[in-house]
């Protein structure tokens, strides 16, 4: 898995900031068959969490109808300088983590 995350590098205290997170994943639904007719097992990213300075600020459960390479964008209030950490967990147990640092003044 490879991910692309974005948050402002700096923000003022109390400012509303936009966070964007995308992960490379085929999101195989489990409803498809391969060229020989055998079912392709489901393998989707089923959970996404985002923590800011150690505290969880956003999480989402994903389902098979969500597109490949899922993209999320959400907002939060800049409270303190610290790491914003993103974690994706897939059905096959694979996880992907990404971190961006934000400086709040």
């Amino acid at each position, binding site marked *: 898995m*490879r*991910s*692309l995350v*974005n948050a402002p590098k700096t923000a003022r205290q109390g400012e509303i900031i936009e966070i*964007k997170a*995308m*992960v*490379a994943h*085929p*999101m195989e639904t489990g409803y498809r068959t391969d060229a020989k007719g055998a079912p392709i097992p489901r393998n989707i990213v089923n959970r996404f969490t985002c923590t800011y300075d150690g505290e969880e600020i956003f999480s989402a459960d994903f389902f098979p109808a969500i*597109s*490949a*390479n899922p*993209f999320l*964008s959400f907002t939060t209030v800049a409270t303190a300088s610290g790491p914003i950490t993103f974690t994706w967990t897939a059905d096959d147990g694979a996880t992907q983590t990404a971190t961006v640092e934000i400086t709040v003044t």
Partner: protein
Amino acid sequence: MTRGQRLSAWLLLAALAAPLALAGEIPRDQRRSGADFMAPETRAMQADDTANPAMLWVLEGDALWREPAGAAGQSCADCHGDTAESMRGVAARHPAFDEASGRPIDLQGRINQCRAERQSAEPFPPEDDRLLALTAYVARQSLGLPADPPDDPRLVPFQENGRHLFERRIGQLNLSCADCHDDHWGGRLGGAPIPQAHPTGYPLYRLEWQTLGSLQRRLRNCMTGVRAETPSFGAPDFVDLELYLMRRAEGLPLEAPGVRP
């Protein structure tokens, strides 16, 4: 028939014939990228590097560029160094003439050739994610540069073959590329707008594909659409067609990796 009647008969004939006349190649000042025909949301997705899913492949390509491969144990970066300099404009000048084969070669073909000959590594199969990633990464370095196909006289016969393929009617629907993309661009086919078919955004992320794909994949799609037989990936005809399309798009800014619906 009086003279006036004869004149009006001619005018009627001319009016009937006008919509049937072939529009021919699109003049330079009317050339528009396929992105112009997209919904604003899709355009915004392409324009924003943090929302464009194709950037995942560009990131992957950046990593692959530095990774040693094959028996030679060399990475792309070992020879070519910093892509921002060495690869700037390269995508805008492909397909280019390849001395070794005496034929035009496209960017993907060039990457695979370098891989086989210089790195002594197994070439990537068509539509392989790693090949698409490297191609997208290299093409990205030409972002905004005008399509600038090389003025090489040796390319002319291949380009003419490409033009011939573009204008030849194929498939059960008996349509040529030109029937839609020269004569009816801006119109609609079913619910979808017909663009001018410029190859400036490839490899690109099609939302329909849910992944990145090459121009050849797109060409095969269109051929299947008119129920024609599709040449296999890497067929010389495809490269000739790519060469003609690039000439046809000359001057349009490159936007790879693009997003299309």
